[in-house]
């Protein structure tokens, strides 16, 4: 059976992890490679590296970092953050990334998804959507959640999949940072409406939240950052818990 995936997300700035992490058993928690390798060893199913560097040197720094990750980490990983062109993706995949995630640039120019899936195959193109619930529905936000659009998340997700997105990484802004659980309703809608995997993100606070998003919302994968970084939940205990609940999990 195909298993549900647990995906830690690492924010990267200037080649370093951003969120303060404190692990005794690694020398440098700011080093994305050490942290990524540790998560892989603990049973993470994939990793996401989100680059939030804003400087002009970002592209070169990022591709070098991606190569270092690919050398040391033996599970698949996705790279996202500011990816805007076929050339950006080409550089990152050649550097060793397994998948890339695109967000704002794909919304501004949806044809980018067609180009990317034609060039590299849908399987490595993840569409990230930041969404917020207001006035009775879920809407797409851009630029890291700073810019509102009038497009409904379900509509954009469907169009994106038609254009070639191979997975949807859905972050609920209402839930993100609350530790009150994932947004089950919109995750469930997308999971059942789309024929590609949906990765739920935002709101994980307890192990039960993961069980809920898999069982009630049918998510294919769940992503979280701080609860893993701050060791509020360990990946081995989380997987053990989900297994006990009868959810398909890799050991």
């Amino acid at each position, binding site marked *: *059976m*195909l*298993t549900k*995936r647990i995906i830690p997300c690492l924010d990267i700035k200037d080649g370093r992890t951003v969120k303060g992490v404190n692990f005794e058993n690694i020398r440098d928690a700011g080093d994305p490679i050490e942290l990524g390798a540790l998560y*892989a060893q603990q049973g993470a*199913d994939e990793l996401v590296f989100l680059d939030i560097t804003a400087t002009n040197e970002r592209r070169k720094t990022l591709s070098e970092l991606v190569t270092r990750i*690919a*050398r*040391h980490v*033996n*599970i*698949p990983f996705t790279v996202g953050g500011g990816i805007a062109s076929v050339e950006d993706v080409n550089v990152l*995949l*050649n*550097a*060793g990334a*397994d998948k890339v995630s695109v967000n704002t640039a794909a919304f501004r120019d949806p044809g980018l998804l067609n180009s990317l899936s034609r060039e*590299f*195959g*849908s*399987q*490595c193109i993840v569409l990230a959507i930041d969404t917020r619930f207001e006035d009775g529905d879920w809407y797409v936000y851009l630029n890291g959640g700073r810019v509102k659009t009038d497009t409904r998340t379900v509509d954009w997700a469907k169009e994106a999949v038609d254009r070639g997105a*191979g*997975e949807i990484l859905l972050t609920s802004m209402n839930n993100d940072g609350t530790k009150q659980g994932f947004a089950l309703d919109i995750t469930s809608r997308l999971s*059942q*409406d*789309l*024929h*590609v*995997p949906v990765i739920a993100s935002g709101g994980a606070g307890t192990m039960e939240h993961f069980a809920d998003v898999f069982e009630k919302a049918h998510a*294919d*994968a769940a992503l979280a950052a701080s609860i893993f970084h701050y060791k509020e939940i360990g990946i081995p205990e989380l997987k053990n818990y989900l297994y006990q609940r009868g959810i398909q999990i*890799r*050991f």
Partner: protein
Amino acid sequence: MKTAIIKYNAGNIRSVLFALERLGVEATVTDDPETLISADKVIFPGVGEASTAMQYLRERKLDRLIRDLQQPVLGICLGMQLLCKHSEENNTDCIGIFDLPVKKFESPVENLLKIPQIGWNNITGLHSVIFEHVPQNAYMYFVHSYYAALGAETTAIANYVINYSAALQKDNFYAVQFHPEKSAEAGQRIIESFLKL
């Protein structure tokens, strides 16, 4: 020992190279016939589309060269599918080491089956020397929309609504549908076992 990776127009070669590097093995990525023929081990990886890949291989006569290789060969993902007889992906005649069809996953109910299959799935019925150090039901990382049917050459089975070949073996040809280079420790052990053949 000389390990060669077949260079062609299907991605993912770098990941394989890095996986070998983690095992302390230096490999050559090449489409040079001499180098491929004289290598001790040949790896045929790939992520991409079958007809484009076969066209590329035929134009360079690499399809025949691969068919005639005598040393252990490991096909990975698209590499495995291209070693089969025929692929439904754009109705492509393939290399034909394994007398098996490659078909597209079909969801019995709309959207029930996500295609491509992306993620970790377990493999059973293992009976090949490359699985010597891997337990039954080990989890491997898969990314694919097409699958090889079951046959006499099946050495591992995976299930995604139907049972299909997760691995094949015939003579010196070994093939896996999943990505051992991305399948953590378990995958690493498969590559190690192959390199020791």
